[in-house]
């Protein structure tokens, strides 16, 4: 299985995968469980997110000779794989509201932006709306999103990009 697209998962310690899985489940519980009804995290889909995240990032690091992925890549690849795999599921009895349509995008924002080492509470609700739209309709590449996250961090911290 050396040519498996998921062989890169073997290059990260399984403990690392499980730690990140626990982090994402904890983020859902702490940040979202009390705010959104009739939604739940699927543990297997969440693990799939984590494995794809590490595999994808590992390939990128290999191609670009990157030793450690920076905070912007971690944020972008986290968001990208969450909105692709949809680890947050709707209960069968859900009465669908607008927030349910973008529940995975909301989770992606919580889990992704927390990688940014800056005060993300300073981001405006207008930007959040833009980000929700981008994640839901237009996200094609985590690499471009990483670039956007770098610019966002500069905007928050006042650093010249």
């Amino acid at each position: 299985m050396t040519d498996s697209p998921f062989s890169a998962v073997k290059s990260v310690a399984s403990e690392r995968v499980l730690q990140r899985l626990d982090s994402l489940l904890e983020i859902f519980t702490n940040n979202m469980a009390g705010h959104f009804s009739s939604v739940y995290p699927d543990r297997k889909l969440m693990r799939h997110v984590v494995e794809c995240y590490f595999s994808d990032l590992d390939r990128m690091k290999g191609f670009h000779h990157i030793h450690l992925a920076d905070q912007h890549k971690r944020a972008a690849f986290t968001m990208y794989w969450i909105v692709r795999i949809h680890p947050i599921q709707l209960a069968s009895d859900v009465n669908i509201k607008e927030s349910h349509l973008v529940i995975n995008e909301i989770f992606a924002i919580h889990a992704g932006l927390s990688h940014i080492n800056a005060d993300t509470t300073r981001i405006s609700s207008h930007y959040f709306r833009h980000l929700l739209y981008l994640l839901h309709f237009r996200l094609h590449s985590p690499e471009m999103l990483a670039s956007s996250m770098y610019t966002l961090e500069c905007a928050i911290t006042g650093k010249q990009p």
Partner: protein
Amino acid sequence: MDDKAVTNISNWREPNSDDPCDEEAYRARAFANAEVINAKILEALTFD
């Protein structure tokens, strides 16, 4: 035409490198930002 490789990225380096992810700090940031981000996202969903 010379039969030589034209793409040599062996000396290219990603300029923006960073520290390894501190999992505890990651969880703490997520927890600290939860209320404000939820409030702003809910506000964002009600724009018209």
